[in-house]
């Protein structure tokens, strides 16, 4: 069983919910980003680290600006692996790490090498936004990652049909199903609770077990609380990245920037129903 599987299973047993924080790795630069992620391990059970791609087609302007900051500071796939490895070593944290990126960086890095590096560093799950259910790359990734007990996470949205949802559940291995609460880009709107309820219900028609986590537009502790009533996990992304941008504009660096961001993340995480 994968570490993500375990995490969700234990949480369910204890009637607890999982808080997931997203941040762009290397934003605004390697050093500060490492401090931010180290601090975030204290309040996130899962950290999603975004690996930037300069021609991303599904990111909101907030994330795109973070991508630019990270790329301009020299960030890439290799350095993200290094960063997460260092964070894990220095904090000895229990927090799970998930990588979120696009297929081009993975393909250029090399699919096999990517799978091996994930295994070596101890990445627990992978989300590839523009990987398609019937592309050959997806098959290689799913098979390769699940052999190493690394989760593969699929995103579904309110406009996807049941056929697509069924296939996503099937391809979502050792992890959770990522539900977007509305049709649109990350962080561009506020979470739509009605959609969350409907989507969770639709998923439950096909699988009683698969954990579901909801993201897109969850920006406040009370929204976190609301969403956690219906989902197994809650994902906050754009609002955290926005906090990084805010601190960066105030010229905060390193540990100071990390404290600035993580105190906000901590507040968000307290929205989880205890």
């Amino acid at each position, binding site marked *: 069983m994968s570490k993500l599987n375990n995490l969700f299973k234990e949480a369910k047993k204890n009637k607890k919910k999982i808080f997931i924080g997203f941040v762009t790795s290397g934003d605004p630069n390697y050093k500060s980003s490492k401090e931010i992620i180290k601090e975030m391990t204290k309040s996130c059970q899962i950290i999603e680290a975004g690996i930037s791609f300069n*021609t*991303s087609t599904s990111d909101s302007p907030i994330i795109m600006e973070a991508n630019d900051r990270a790329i301009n500071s020299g960030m890439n796939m290799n350095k993200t692996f290094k960063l997460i490895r260092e964070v894990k070593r220095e904090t000895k944290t229990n927090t799970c790490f998930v990588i979120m990126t696009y297929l*081009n960086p993975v393909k250029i890095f090399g699919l096999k090498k990517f799978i091996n590096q994930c295994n070596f560093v101890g990445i627990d799950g992978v989300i590839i936004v*523009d990987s*398609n259910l019937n592309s050959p790359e997806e098959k290689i990734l799913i098979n390769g990652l699940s052999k190493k007990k690394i989760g593969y996470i*699929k*995103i579904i949205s309110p406009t996807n049909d049941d056929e697509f949802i069924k296939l996503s559940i099937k391809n979502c291995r050792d992890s959770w199903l990522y539900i977007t609460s509305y049709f649109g*880009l990350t962080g561009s709107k506020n979470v739509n609770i009605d959609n969350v309820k409907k989507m969770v219900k639709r998923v439950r028609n096909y699988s009683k077990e698969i954990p579901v986590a909801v993201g897109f537009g969850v920006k406040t502790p009370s929204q976190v609380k609301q969403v956690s009533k219906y989902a197994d996990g809650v994902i906050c992304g754009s609002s955290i990245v926005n906090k990084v941008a805010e601190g960066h504009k105030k010229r905060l660096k390193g540990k100071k920037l990390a404290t600035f961001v993580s105190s906000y993340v901590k507040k968000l995480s307290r929205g989880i129903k205890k």
Partner: protein
Amino acid sequence: MKIPPFKEINPPTKDGFWINKKTKERFGGQYISPLLVPNLKRVEKGFFKAIKDKKFMRELNEELLSFIGVNTPVHFSPELTKLAGGEKKIGKIYLKRTDLHTNHSHKPVSAYSCCKLAKYLGFKKILTETGAFQNGRAVASACAALGLDLDIYVGANDAKKLAINKDISALHGANIIEVHDSTKSLLPAMAAALRAFQSEPDSMYVVGSVAGPHPYPLMVRTFGSVIGRITKKQFKNLVGKDPSTIFSVCGGGSNMLCISYPYLKTKNTKIYAVESAGKGLKTGKHGATIGGGGKIGILLGMQSKVLLDGENIAESFTEASGLDFSSIGTEVAFLQSVGRIKFLTATDLEAKKTFMMMARKVGLICAIEACYVIHAAIKEIRKIGKPKQNHLIHLCGAGEPNVAQMMEHMKKNK
């Protein structure tokens, strides 16, 4: 002339891939967020339904003939023939005058067809991107004619350069959105249009070239091949046989594929595509995906050849906004990889000199994009150097939008 019917002679797989069986390279696909899956399905299903719908196709063809004026001439060019060395040395050079379409380029053919499809499918609004604003203008005119709303995404730098077509698009009622991401050119504009497509389920995206996720590349070349179908018949009527060569410029590759498509299985016709070498391939400042050594990458919903910068997409550079693109269309990349299309380049300076030559010696103001192909074609035709050849150059656009840019060039070089 009636528009000859479409025949599928290079079909992709059902997932939208063209596969090079030898190298196993794949071109195409649907590399998009799950959010876009339903929209693309709707467009794909609708497209296949529409091209089988006799009434839809009859109406479309009538409107392409009357409103767009697709029956533009193919004619002998004595000036270019002479310039290349004369009939005795190189045979004859002909021009296909796509610049004479309503809205002055090849873009209106696929733009009008796709907008008509959108209407057929019940969409109320169109989203598109543009580089040289030729596509923007073409879609704006189509949307006005068909009663559709329109958002045009354009790189902020391009918006500054090509004022006339931008103004014309606005006069047609288009809403113009400037994109300030990364290079502020065609690539980020297309990414922005695709993002909008993910946020507006009731709008249909229309692409400006044979690029993007399946079914877009297939759709644009199928609709756009009207140009090639007419050309093939015209050329046969005029010359008595198929051309020995066809030369077209290649940004994304739409004008090239639209004219060349009916010749893909015509063995005696060699097909050439010309990319912009910008300031020169060696300077690294160019827009030549193939000439500059592009590799397989995944961007804007497709797998194709791409100029890469590490794990990211590299910036392209050329003074021709329509060619300022770090990738090429998926079927084009496939045809190149199997050796069906040969690629050449011309620099910005060579194109500008050719623009002046065409203005002074031939009497035509050509789109700057078309000047890359004219330059490279003449050079290649000289190299071929055989009599009794019949060469065809695709004059894919008129040069009004480039007047300001070229006046500056003229003043500098007085």
